[in-house]
């Protein structure tokens, strides 16, 4: 449970590191202590021998003192020291074993027993005032004490020799022990360091990933995948909250985006309408500019027609009437919609006027199916095309030419086809392509007049792109302009 929180994990990991270091240090300390103890043990044998020699000396001294003073205190000292000597002797080996050192110990023990025996006899003789006896026992004890010292020295030499051999073995190993324990401490330190580093990454890793996710979302990457965090600590809680927040933000932005797209579409529609309206205004403006003189001309023609009627000039009256009717049609706004029948009637007047002008030089043909007469069309589409045929296509044809105007339904019945064709000089394919491209461009047409491009533009605008103008022409083989109008424009 304590590991479920960051604080608990910090405490636990720090404890692990401290324990590792403590174990390493404690272990090296124990190893060193054990080494020191082993060295001490190596010389403990000599210490036992030293104790034996010391108690032998003190026993001898107390015995001598007693023999000289015969005091109870010196006797007590002798008893105490001889007891200690016997105790020390009992520490030595007394069994018979096949070992030089053990046999020496047994010899020393036997000598001590012999010494104490003589000493006891000496004390007894002293107390019995048997001077020759205690003198002899004292001398015997002195001789035995010398032999004890001799063997103790010999045994100590053996011990020392063994100790030196053993210590030299230690000496060879101590370097390895120091190196090993140093390596252990270093390994423990590195281990602790790695644990700390790993723990820091364990702790800060999820936070870093969360921070990275936050930065990504800050950059607008709302779909940035959040790191999977299974921890139940504070970081896990933060991650869960962050994930929830990310989802909320994503939803909010999705809604905003949806609204924005709707508004964008509306704006585009509005802009398209405005653009269309603007272009229509331009076209109307252009048309009005062309209507200034025709209005004056129309009124003048009305006056002329009345004059000719008064004077009885019927042919002039017809001319002026046709001309006035044509001008009246042309003076109306070009952006208006008319019926194909109106266009046919306008073109017919125009052809009548052309015939009056050019006589029999050009041959005109005008045909219209009844099915298309009610189809709605932008005004003044056909007249500019006829004017182009005469003014450009047939202008240089000295031998005359033919202009045909047709209005019919397309073969699939979906469109009304208005066709103006001539037998004029025709055009190069590049010229055809240029004219069609210019008709598609939204460039200012003010300085180009109402021509083919104007026709193409107005068909596109009026039919919202569903209508089309086709141009077929080859040099020397005439030109055909075909206008396709959707049938849905029926009134």
């Amino acid at each position, binding site marked *: 449970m304590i590991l479920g929180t960051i604080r608990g994990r910090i405490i636990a990991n720090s404890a692990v590191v401290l324990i590792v270091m403590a174990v390493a240090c404690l272990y090296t300390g124990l190893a060193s202590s054990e080494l020191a103890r082993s060295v001490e043990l190596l010389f403990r044998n000599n210490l036992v021998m030293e104790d034996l020699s010391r108690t032998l000396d003190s026993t001898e001294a107390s015995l001598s003192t007693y023999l000289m003073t015969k005091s109870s205190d010196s006797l007590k000292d002798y008893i105490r020291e001889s007891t200690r000597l016997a105790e020390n002797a009992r520490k030595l080996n007394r069994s018979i*074993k096949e070992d030089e050192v053990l046999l020496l110990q*047994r*010899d020393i023990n*036997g000598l001590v027993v012999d010494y104490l025996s003589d000493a006891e006899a000496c004390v007894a003789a002293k107390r019995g005032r048997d001077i020759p006896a205690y003198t002899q026992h004292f001398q015997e004890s002195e001789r035995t004490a010398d032999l004890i010292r001799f063997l103790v020295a010999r045994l100590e030499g053996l011990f020392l020799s063994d100790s030196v051999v053993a210590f030299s073995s230690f000496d060879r*190993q101590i370097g390895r022990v120091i190196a090993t324990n140093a390596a*252990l401490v270093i390994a*423990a330190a590195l281990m602790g360091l790695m644990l700390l580093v790993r723990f820091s990454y364990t702790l800060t*890793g999820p936070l870093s990933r969360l921070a990275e996710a936050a930065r990504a979302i800050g950059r607008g990457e709302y779909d940035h995948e959040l790191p999977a965090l299974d921890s139940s600590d504070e970081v896990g809680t933060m991650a869960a909250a962050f994930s929830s927040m990310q989802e909320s933000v994503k939803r909010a932005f999705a809604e905003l985006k949806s609204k924005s797209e709707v508004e964008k579409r509306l704006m585009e529609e509005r802009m398209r309408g405005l653009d269309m309206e603007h272009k229509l205004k331009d076209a109307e403006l252009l048309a009005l500019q062309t209507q200034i003189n025709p209005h004056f001309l129309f009124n003048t023609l009305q006056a002329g027609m009345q004059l000719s009627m008064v004077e009885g000039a019927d042919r002039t009256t017809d001319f002026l009437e046709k001309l006035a009717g044509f001008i009246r049609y042309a003076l109306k706004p070009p952006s208006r919609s008319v019926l194909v029948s109106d266009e046919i009637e306008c073109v017919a007047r125009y052809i009548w006027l052309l015939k009056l002008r050019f006589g029999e030089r050009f041959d005109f043909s005008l045909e219209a199916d009844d099915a298309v007469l009610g189809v709605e069309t932008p005004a003044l589409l056909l007249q500019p095309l006829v004017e182009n045929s005469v003014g450009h296509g047939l202008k240089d044809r000295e031998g005359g030419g033919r202009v045909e105007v047709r209005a019919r339904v397309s073969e699939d019945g979906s469109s009304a086809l208005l066709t103006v064709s001539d037998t004029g000089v025709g055009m190069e394919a590049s010229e055809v392509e240029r004219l069609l491209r210019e008709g598609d461009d939204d460039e200012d047409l003010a300085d180009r007049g109402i021509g083919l491009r104007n026709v193409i533009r107005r068909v596109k605008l009026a039919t919202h792109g569903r209508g089309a103008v086709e141009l077929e022409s080859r040099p020397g083989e005439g030109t055909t302009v075909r206008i396709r109008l959707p049938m849905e424009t029926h009134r």
Partner: protein
Amino acid sequence: MLYFAAVMKNAARILAIVFGLAFLGATLLNADLIGRSRKALASGIFKDQSALVARRYELVVVMPETDDSFFSGLLSGIMDRAAAADAAVQVFRYPASSPDDAERYFDIALRAKADGLIMYTPRNDPVAGRLEAAGKAGVVMIPVGTDAPAGGLPRFIGSSSLLQGFEGGRIICGKLGSSARIGIILPASREGDPRDEPIYKGVASAIMSFPGARISALIRGGQGLLSGEESAASILHANPGINALFCTSARDTIGAAQVVVDLNKVGKVMIVGADETPEIDRYIEKGVIQASIVRDSRRVGQEAVLAFMDIKAGRPARESIEVGFSLRSARGIK
């Protein structure tokens, strides 16, 4: 960053393993050292006595500290029979130049109440008094040596120097006949007039059968490592007519052989030596040494232990025993 974290994770695992191995290694090494310390202690007071064989008797051996192969053979013979006698052997060696130290060890054996004492006894030692003192202390004493004390001694076990000398003289004269001019190098571990030595007497007895043959030089060997060479060189320089050297120890024999080789007198100076060593055998094979008389000191040791066992078993003490010798020459062992 994540890669580094993964590396740290792996590094932590590796270091954990290293730490574990280091910890284990340190534990094993320290345990080994502690074991060594215990083992070292076991060689002293605190040794594990259960691993040692317990014996019924403590048998003290007192002999001089010398490289004479007689004593190595003697000790080897004692060790051969000690197990059968159920005895643990305690060896005290005293300097050959300080025979008084032998008395100290004798005293120790008696006062420490050893069960038995096998003691090397030179010809002039007061061995009778020691036997009596040992008897009073309840210690069975078996004197051993090369020659029995004057007047003889019960329990004495040794080889006969007289016979050794006689055999040496016989070999030399058998080869050189009446022209034999012999130089004798006596053992260093003895004292007194060299002409009283049984070896000398043995050689002298042997050459009596070869009129004209004579002992031209008689010296006692030294104690040093090169004493054999010194003695041989000394004899040959002082007595250029010597054509035979009789040596009574392995060291003197080898030293004499080296001197003869160095002086380019191989074939001109005959050598009859003592004891057996690989070096002596090599010189015999090369013809530098004609023969080596090997006293059976090993048997002396074996017989000493048997005598100890007899006494401990309550059987009557044996008479003196003189073991024989063998002869090593280029023709083999006799």
